[in-house]
């Protein structure tokens, strides 16, 4: 079953066409990587899907509903590019940050429920950060902060998590561990993952689909395995030319 369908999507920034006639769909349980060079509209695409930007034309259906009218906020979660660039001096604990993610489930004017604490613990346990729950978010390393933001996304038990370059500015070891964590969330917890990334080599073994956007407007959606094989042979050709 397709939980996300994008049909004939067009989007321009001023005069420049960023996304041209893009169509693809995502099935339940997919792990889709959106790749491409800078300026090909990867982050823009996520923002269009999440209705943070308005498309010029085309249609985006989330669970069969136009994304403009989508209100089932607890079904989706988003880890933005900004997560690693937030105000590190903000006086909030890990627990407080993760509890904010419960809003999509609890809704307006609701106070903390007794079950909230258990959900926060479960989310922090999943990302291996429960021992840090009373620490200030600004006192953690980049990789730990990103795990906390993933816990914030997980706490409302979403069916899809969108991530916009979650490994930017993080050391290689932390990148690998975050990629493994996302792979686990997809395989063990059956969460659909749609992720914009540059760190394609680390994540490719966990993904099953790749959406490749290129500057000339050429769009391809292929299996991660095919993409892996292509990339390896391309690297090999490149090495031979050196």
């Amino acid at each position, binding site marked *: 079953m397709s939980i996300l369908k994008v049909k004939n999507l067009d989007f321009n920034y001023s005069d420049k066409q960023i996304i041209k006639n893009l169509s693809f769909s995502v099935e339940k349980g997919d792990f889709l990587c959106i790749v491409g060079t800078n300026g090909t509209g990867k982050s823009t695409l996520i923002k269009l899907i999440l209705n943070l930007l308005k498309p010029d034309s085309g249609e985006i259906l989330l669970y069969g509903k136009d994304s403009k009218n989508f209100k089932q906020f607890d079904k989706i979660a988003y880890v933005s590019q900004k997560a690693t660039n*937030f105000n*590190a*001096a903000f*006086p*909030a604990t890990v627990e407080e940050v993760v509890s*904010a993610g419960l809003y999509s489930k609890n*809704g*307006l004017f609701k106070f903390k429920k007794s079950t909230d604490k258990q959900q926060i613990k479960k989310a922090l346990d999943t990302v291996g950060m429960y021992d840090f729950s009373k620490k*200030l978010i600004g006192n953690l390393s980049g990789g730990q902060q990103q795990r906390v933001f993933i816990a914030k996304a997980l706490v*409302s038990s979403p069916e899809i998590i969108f991530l916009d370059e979650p490994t930017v500015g993080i050391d290689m070891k932390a990148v690998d561990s975050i990629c493994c964590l996302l792979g686990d969330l997809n395989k063990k917890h059956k969460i659909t993952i749609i992720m914009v990334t540059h760190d394609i080599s680390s994540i490719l073994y966990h993904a099953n689909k790749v959406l490749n956007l290129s500057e000339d407007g050429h769009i391809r959606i292929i299996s991660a395995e095919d993409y892996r094989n292509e990339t390896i042979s391309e690297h090999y050709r490149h090495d031979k030319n050196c």
Partner: protein
Amino acid sequence: MELLSYGFIQRAFLAALLISIITPLIGNIIVLKRLSTIGDALAHAGLAGVAIGLCAGLNPILSAVIFSIAAALAIEYIRRAFYRYSEMATAIVLSFGVGIAAVFSGFVKNSADFGSFLFGSIVAVSQFELYMVVILSIIVCIVMIILYRELFYITFDEEGAQLSGVPVKKVNFLFTLITAVTVSIASRTVGSLVISSLMTIPVACAMLISKSYKSNVVLSVMFALLFTISGLFISFLYDLKPGGTIVLIGIFVLIILLPFRRKN
């Protein structure tokens, strides 16, 4: 203690205590959104309202409230228009407020009236003004408690809050409205030039030692109460201006706390 037996002193204390509870509650959001100067801008816009109100024979508090609300909305509008230089919005509105206040203050017949809004006249708080402060304080406390989670989320990550279903625009509008009303009503008691300090200094002190957002809010209110109570006593004992004394005590405590700030 004999001081507290006088009716006007009791009114002054009650009004000042209530204001020192609500201003840091609002100040936490303002400071963490990096909009610390917004209090100054709204206070000066309120001052412009006072000047025009006094000239036109209107209730100066009412005209201050109207001007502050208009200024708050203008700040939001200018912030969106200059997205990458949003801090300019407060400077523009502040300058506009100062300009209008300066021009119209020349036409105010009783300059002592205008001066009481500049530096406050806490000992001259009337029964009516006290009622206004009480009602305002109840409204601000209720809004801040009910919208605690929403305001925290918006302040920490506005985009994330929007995607979680927080009605960001409506919450921001309501917050702007109560900030404007608080600034203009509190200006009458503690003074336009002091109100912004009461919004920022207790929060700054709390940020040096707090271990969570919740403790930051609680500590900032406690600091504001400490500054206000000690400031009022010292000012009454030594015949000083209460508003200025409260602010100076706050700065003094901030300097003492600086070496003890938590590591980040």
